[in-house]
């Protein structure tokens, strides 16, 4: 049984204005990036995966459970969604209370919830801010609080909507490490992002949406090799690949480390 099965799903907020059209794919553990032009249906898709929205046609099965027959609350133990805007997610007056809310909500004892919340705050390096009001923190710190609120529930599926927005180098490094750790722990990590270098470095599989349709779905290197198709969806390969190709070389590179390795191997004296 797949962790997630999306079968011929279509969705419209307003009748006649399709946001998703006949989308089909299945997912298991590992890291998956969902990329696409603004308005291509990415955020709508992850809201459907969390059962915040229900498909108009088609079905979504989360661990075999049809989202039409369950609720977001019932899925909370399985699917965690970090919203694009932390202000849409955070509502408590204290960081620790915010991060404990999810664990308590899924039935953990106060001690257990506190322990998991502290561990999650350590992961995002915000444990020293646990007594503060989230709205006294910077936007990037609030984003990390919203991430900790999901990590504290240890769901099998973790979805991030644009996690690197407003993050500086330190914050991005932290988020990359969180994604890798979750994958190492056998979780399914789904991320919406516009940062192609982040996708190249951290994600094993890429799904491309264009105007509500599934345009590409495959291993990251394979998807980024289709530059002409990506351009139709307002996307481009990572900068390292662009540089590699500008040098006249073939292939797709996914990180600066790969670039250095391949470039040095081509030097005459190597």
């Amino acid at each position, binding site marked *: 049984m797949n962790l997630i099965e999306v079968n011929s799903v279509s969705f419209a907020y307003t009748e006649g204005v399709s946001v998703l059209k006949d989308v089909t794919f299945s997912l298991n553990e590992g890291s998956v990036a969902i990329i696409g*032009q603004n308005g291509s249906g990415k955020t709508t898709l992850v809201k459907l995966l969390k059962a915040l929205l229900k498909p108009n046609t088609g079905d979504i099965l989360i661990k075999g459970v049809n989202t039409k027959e369950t609720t977001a609350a019932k899925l909370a133990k399985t699917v965690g969604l970090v919203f694009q805007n932390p202000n849409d997610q955070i509502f408590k007056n204290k960081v620790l209370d915010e991060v404990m809310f999810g664990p308590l909500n899924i039935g953990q004892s106060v001690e257990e919830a506190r322990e998991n919340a502290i561990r999650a705050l350590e992961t995002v390096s915000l444990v020293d801010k646990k007594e503060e009001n989230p709205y006294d923190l910077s*936007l990037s710190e609030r984003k990390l609080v919203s991430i900790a609120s999901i990590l504290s529930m240890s769901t099998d599926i973790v979805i991030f909507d644009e996690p690197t927005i*407003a993050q*500086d*180098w330190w914050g991005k490094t932290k988020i990359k490490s969180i994604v890798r750790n979750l994958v190492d722990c056998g979780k399914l990590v789904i991320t919406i992002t516009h940062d192609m270098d982040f996708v190249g470095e951290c994600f094993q599989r890429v799904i491309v949406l264009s105007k509500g349709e599934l345009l590409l779905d495959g291993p990251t290197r394979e998807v980024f090799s289709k530059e002409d198709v990506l351009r139709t969806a307002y996307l481009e390969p990572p*900068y390292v690949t662009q*540089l590699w190709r*500008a040098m006249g070389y073939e292939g797709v590179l996914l990180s600066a480390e790969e670039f250095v390795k391949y470039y040095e191997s081509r030097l005459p004296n190597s």
Partner: protein
Amino acid sequence: MKAVVVENLKYRYPSTERLALDSVSFEVEQGEFIGIIGKNLAGKSTLCEALVGLVPHFYKGAYGGRVVVDGVEVLSSDVSELARHIGIVFQNPFTQVTAAKLTVYEEVAFGLENFGFERSEMVDRIDYVLKLLGLYEYKDRNPFELSGGQMQRLAIASIIAMKPSIIVLDEPTSQLDPLGSEEVFKAVQSLSKEGITIIMVEQKMEKIAQYADKVMLMNEGRVIDFGAPEKVFSRSDLETYGVEPPVFTSIAKRLNIKDNDTGLYPVTLEQMRRLMISEPHRS
């Protein structure tokens, strides 16, 4: 006349102890495109607020030094008067969109109406900016039915429509797809070529390196460096300030590829490609 003059600016938010801006001094020529970089809480957004007068007029707090934009001294003016000279695009478009208007078209018209522009002039400007930012097809839609990226473009359009002498943008492309982001940078660059001064806070170092005339590196409320992108991104201590240089510069540093004439590292794809193709560059 300089577009912006900042002299020994110090500022502390109410009920805080730390200076958010500390001894900041710099000047910007008319039509220059300035990129501001630095880690979170470096003072970048506060500096933007100080340029448009929200600091100190809205936020209050302790203020010292002098800020002059387009010949107007910020401290002795007010936010509404300053808005005729300098506009700001906020980091979060939900902060910017008024929620008072029901369509994208009316939202862009809002600022122009407030300034009392002629109807024909308003129509021309609204059509121009909606097309420039790829929003024309959404002109009759409610702003709150737009995606995050479309909303961000609407916030930018609303400011560009007013054509202030100086435009401040605080991470304006954070929610945009790669080519949409590129379009915004190109649009902003064309405004700068028309003589509008651009001051942009941005985390996308590759784009800042490509488009900005100068880069300002901030840390803990202070200006650490201010100069050509090649000079700032060639610093060996960037990571200390929580900044990762453009990926091209990172690779060049690892491969020790420098411009022999300047001794500086390349910062754009084209500079890097040129240096890699022309030997000898490895020392």
